[in-house]
């Protein structure tokens, strides 16, 4: 693995709800190397989005708060950093692309204005220079006739173009880390393919690290170098993308892989993980996956299971990892 540019260690995030303070992210650790793409995978409610927002210190406070842990960018601690310092990093060193391009772009300002704004904030350059840069990045994301598109409002763009404009905005200051939170989920498959291709080629050109948050294992297989799987606010497994798909070590990962309806396989009964994920205010004791795990034993319900390091830079949160042989993707 390349030298880590982003390191998250033992991150805890809590939200104040009707059930009191609820920990939605608990002891999450991972790192992203320079130029690497890490996929953060999980179902809705697994805490993956909260984790990615925490890196930018953008979770809403209140009701949220980072209750512990450390997030380091290029060695600098972000947790507890002053707001002005964080603002210097956001959008410049670490940039972000969100899921819904319709709502994540401001409907009241033009695309050009929204790109220029970030350039001027971090480069302190003139209006004209910012406009030139905006045209440059729009060209990068293959928006035809970018100069005339500067004056367009988000609602005048198609979904795919909006997401590309959002990527252009994120890349405007050459970030070292790009956090992409389900950037293709709201798009049609053919447009998703375009955006994935675009992200891949941009990364090859500029070498930024990508933290790619998604629930879609197909997208992970397509784009990511390494994967961290989250379940119920915790990371249950990290591995390189090939290892993870070929020989998953955690029963939840196995369940997810088996559950993917795969092209070229028909008529077989679909594998489904029984039950539903727990609510964050009623986490099961012991392994949080044990109520749904086909391999669970009494011991799994008793004490907390630590994330254990395995050979080949893998980590798994399962006490039966040595005994179990799990099935990977076909």
């Amino acid at each position, binding site marked *: 693995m390349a030298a880590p540019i982003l390191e998250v260690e033992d991150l805890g995030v809590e939200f104040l709800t009707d059930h009191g303070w609820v920990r939605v992210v608990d002891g999450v650790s991972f790192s992203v190397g320079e130029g690497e793409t890490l996929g953060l995978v999980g179902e809705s409610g697994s805490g993956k989005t909260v984790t990615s927002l925490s890196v930018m210190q953008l979770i809403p406070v209140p009701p949220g708060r980072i209750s512990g842990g450390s997030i380091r960018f290029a060695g600098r601690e972000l947790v507890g950093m002053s707001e002005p310092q964080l603002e210097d990093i956001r959008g410049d060193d670490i940039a972000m692309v969100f899921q819904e391009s319709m709502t994540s772009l401001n409907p009241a300002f033009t695309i050009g204005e929204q790109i220029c704004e970030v350039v001027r904030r971090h480069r302190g350059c003139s209006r004209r220079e910012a406009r030139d840069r905006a045209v440059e990045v729009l060209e990068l994301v293959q928006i035809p006739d970018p100069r005339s598109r500067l004056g367009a409002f988000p609602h005048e763009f198609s979904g795919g173009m909006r997401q590309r404009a959002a990527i252009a905005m994120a890349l405007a200051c050459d970030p070292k880390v790009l956090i992409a939170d389900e950037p293709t989920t709201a798009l*049609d498959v053919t447009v998703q393919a375009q955006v994935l291709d675009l992200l891949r080629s941009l990364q090859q050109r500029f070498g930024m690290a990508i933290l790619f948050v998604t629930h879609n294992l*197909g997208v992970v297989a397509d784009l990511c170098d390494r994967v961290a799987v989250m379940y119920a606010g915790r990371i249950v497994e990290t591995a390189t993308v090939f290892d993870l798909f070929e020989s998953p070590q955690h029963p939840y990962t196995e369940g997810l892989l088996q*559950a*993917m309806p795969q092209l070229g396989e028909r008529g077989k009964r679909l594998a489904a993980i029984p039950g*539903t994920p727990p609510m964050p205010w009623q986490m099961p004791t012991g392994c949080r996956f044990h109520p749904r795990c086909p391999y669970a034993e009494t011991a799994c319900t008793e004490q907390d299971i630590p994330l254990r390091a395995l050979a080949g830079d893998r980590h798994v949160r399962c006490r039966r990892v040595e005994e179990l042989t799990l099935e990977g*993707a076909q």
Partner: protein
Amino acid sequence: MTAPLLSVRDLAVTFHLRGGLLRPTRHLKAVNGVSFDIAPGETLAVVGESGSGKSTMARAVMRLVEPSAGSIHLDGDDITALRGEPLRRIRPKLQMVFQDPYSSLDPSMIIADVVGEPLTVHGVATGADRDERVQALLEQVGLGRYHMNRYPYEFSGGQRQRIAIARAIALQPKLLVLDEAVSALDVSTQNQILNLLEDLRRELGIAYLFISHDLGVVEHIADRVAVTYLGRIVEEGPTERIFAKPAHPYTEALLSAVPIPNPRIQRSRQRIVLPGDVPSPLAPPPGCPFHTRCPHVMDVCKTVMPAHTPMAGGGSAACYLHDPQATEGGRRAS
């Protein structure tokens, strides 16, 4: 072949978007000359991206939106123009499950009333009799009697979709229209519902019109597949044939665009990345609607919509690549 349960011919649905004083009214042809059949007990999947008109197709079949042209026959009866009481009377044969499990259940009703409503409004069962049937229905979809007096907000997305299915099968329909019924769910829950649908089909012999954008799911559940693009069916045929030998360039691109959850396969396969977006249904391109993004576009594609040509292995595709005459003419022209 047995008589089809559902027979749709040249169906069109046009929405009129009212303009302002100085803005003209615009016409959106959401569905444009669509024909298909569903045999009893068969599953037809309609796949397509946003703007393909697949949901409107489902609603038109359900007679929830008015078709502007064409005909719909259910079980031999023409239901295209039914209204009021006669339409109500065919409802038991034809039921629907909607995409959003959150907005499809009335928040002010308890589950017993939600699931029992079809029984009540068709005078099938009342009182204790109705409750007994509701209980049986809930058990059939994997829920219990203790759920009867609860409100929809107390259920997860997957459970709500089970409730919606229980309501839809209460009248023992012959055809169930499923409009993106599993799209809003997480994979693990999605598979539970798909398996439930599979079980119900075996037990009750219901035919499904399965609307989806997820090709993986479609391949699992469908007997036949219809691929839609901008309000038209561009290709149709048995599932095996469509997935193994797609005939239409759009089907091919669509299949190619779905990332396979296996990095070795996904990274080594040839992919077709289509340029641009789906054009707006308000201003569809002339000729073949796909010609603006098609890698094989010919001159003839830009002017005249190709007719459906039968394909080896079953089904048909509407593409000049499979129409020998047109291909030659097109080549010559270009």
